[in-house]
C-alpha cells in the first residue's frame, strides 16, 4: 500500500508519501515525483520497455530516498524518459539497487530542479507505516 499527495509550499512543491513498507515508500515517492514531471505518466498505456538500473549509496535511509529520486530525475532529463515504475528493488539501510521502467517523453509538464533534503525525515508510526515529506525545487 502506498499513497502520495502534493502539499502547498511558498516557493516550491511539497510531496507527502505514506506507505506500509520502505519499499512501497520508495515506489510511491517515485510515482509522485513522476506524476509531477509528466502528469499522466502512471496511467498511460504503452508497450515501451525502456529500463534503467540504479545502484546508489547514501549516508542514511532518508538521504538514500532523496538521492535515489534525484538520480532518476537526472536520467529523465538526459534520456528524455520519465522513469516511474520500480520493478525490482533491493533496499538496504543505505544502499538501493533497482530496475526502473520508464516512458519516452518529448516534453515534461514541470521542470523540477531537484528533490531537496530540506526537512526530510522518514518516520514510522506505531502501526509500522512510513511517512515522509519532500520539498521539490521547481
Amino acid at each position, binding site marked *: 500500500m502506498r499513497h502520495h499527495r*502534493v502539499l*502547498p*509550499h*511558498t*516557493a*516550491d*512543491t511539497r510531496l507527502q508519501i505514506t506507505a506500509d513498507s520502505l519499499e512501497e515508500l520508495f515506489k510511491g515517492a517515485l510515482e509522485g515525483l513522476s506524476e509531477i514531471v509528466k502528469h499522466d505518466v502512471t496511467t498511460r498505456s504503452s508497450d515501451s520497455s525502456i529500463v534503467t538500473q540504479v545502484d546508489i549509496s*547514501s*549516508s542514511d535511509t*532518508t*538521504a538514500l530516498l532523496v*538521492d535515489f529520486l*534525484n538520480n532518476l530525475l*537526472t536520467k529523465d*532529463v*538526459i534520456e*528524455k524518459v520519465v522513469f516511474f515504475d520500480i520493478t525490482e528493488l533491493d533496499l538496504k539501510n543505505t544502499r538501493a539497487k533497482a530496475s526502473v521502467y520508464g516512458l519516452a517523453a518529448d*516534453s*515534461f*509538464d*514541470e*521542470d523540477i*530542479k*531537484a528533490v*531537496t*533534503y*530540506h*526537512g*526530510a525525515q522518514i518516520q514510522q508510526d506505531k502501526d509500522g507505516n512510513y511517512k515522509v515529506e519532500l*520539498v521539490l*525545487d*521547481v
Partner: protein
Amino acid sequence: MITENNLTEISPVEWEIPLSFRSDMRVPARFFASKSMLSEILGDRSLEQLVNVATLPGIVGAALAMPDIHEGYGFPIGGVAATKWPDGVISPGGIGYDINCGVRLLKSDLTRMQLEPFKERLALDLSRSIPSGTGQGSKMTLDFAELDEVLTQGVGWALNKGYATQSDVDHTESRGRLDGADPAAVSDFAKKRGCAQLGTLGSGNHFVEVGFVEKIFDEEAARIIGLKQDQITILIHTGSRGLGHQVATDYIKIMLQELAEFGIELPDRELACLPFSSRDGQRYFAAMSAAANFAWANRQMITYRTREVWKRCVGVGDLPLVYDVAHNIAKVEEHVVDGTLTKVVVHRKGATRAFGKGFAELPEEYQRIGQPVIIPGSMGTSSYVLLGAAKAMEKTFGSACHGAGRVMSRHAAKAKQLGRELQTELAGEGIIVKTAAVRDLSEEAPYAYKDVDDVVNVIELAGIATKVARLKPLIVIKG
C-alpha cells in the same frame, strides 16, 4: 515558532533575532522589512531558516535577509551569509540549485511610442526564437570539449565566438567569468544536462521582458547609465539550467557524507556544507564557478538571439547591455568584520551584489555612481534599476534584494485564476504575454508576489541602494 516578540527593532526597516534566541546560533539573524511586512514574513518558515543559517560554522557578522525574504529550503530566499575565509564553510544550499540565476538589462534607442508598430511582431519573433519552457533545448548542442570552454571562460567564450562584445563583458558582474572554475569538478551528468541548454530560458519565473522606463528617480545617474523617460528596455532573467541544478545535487550529496568527518552538525540537511579550504569544499567552489560561467554565457546567448530578433523586427540600434547581476552565487570578497578588513565567502541566495562607488571591477562610468542593481518585479508589475550604496558595505556584505519575493505558493496562485484569464487581463493593460504553457501562467501572477515597490522602498530606506529608474512591461516571454 518565531513571533514578533522575538524580534528587536534596530530601525523602522531593520530587525534582529538576537543570539540568545537559540543556543546553537553563532551570530544574530538580521533582516530588512517594514513593520507592515512582518506578518507575511512571520507567516512562513523563512525566519526559522534564517536562524538555522546563523548556526553555520565560520559565519561572521550576522545571518542576513533582504525584504523579499520567503521560505526556501535550507537557506531562506533573500538570504546572505558570509563565512570566514578559508576555514569557514561553503554551503551549496546558500547558493541554491539554480547557480547564478541572475538578470540583465539591455537598453534601446527607441521610445515606447516608436516601438508600437513593431510590438506584436517583436513579441511573436522573440517567443519563436528564444527556446523557453520545460525541457526546451537549445539551437546548439555543445560537445564536452566546447562545453568545457564555456565553463572556463563564461562570457569570454561568447566574445571569442562573436556572440558578445567587449562592452558586454565589461558590463557583466565579475566580467562574466569566475577565475576558479574547473570543468573537471563538474560531473558528466551535469555536463550532459547542460550541453543542449545554452541559450535557453527554462521555465518557472524565468523570462525575457520588453519594457519601458516609466519613471526616473535620479536624473544624473540615469544619464550616466543611459536611461531616459519612455525608453524601451529588455530584461533577461535565467540561470545555469540543468547543469547548475546537477552541480548542486552532486555536491550536497557529497557534503552530507562528509559532515561527520569535519564534526559538523546541522539543523537542516539542506544546509550541507564543508570548510571552504577542504578538498570537496574547493571542488564545489570550482564546480559552482563553472556553473556560474555557464549561466553568464547562457544569458549572453539569449542576448545575442534577442539582438538578432530586434534587428529583424525593429532594425534600429544594437541593444547595449546596462548591467548583468547574479543573485544565486558565492564569492570570495573582502569586507569589514568587527572593524577589520577580512576575506570572507559571501553566499547570496536570492540576493544581488550591490557595491557602492569606486569598486575597481566596475566599468569606469559606474565607478563614479555605484554598481547598477537590477530588480525584476513580478509579471505585469514594475521592475527597478537601483545603485549600490555605501551602507550596503556596512550592513549587508554589499548585497541587496533580488526581486519582489513570493507570498503565495505556485499551487495556490494557479488555483486563484486561470492562466488564460490572466493573459487576457494583462493584454487589457497593454502587456503581451507569450508562453508555451498558458495553464501555468498564473503561477507567476502579480498577486503571488509581494509589492516590489514596498520591497525596494525598504532597501532605499535602509541605505543599501538608491532608486534610479522604474520600468514597466510591454511584452513578456515567460519561460
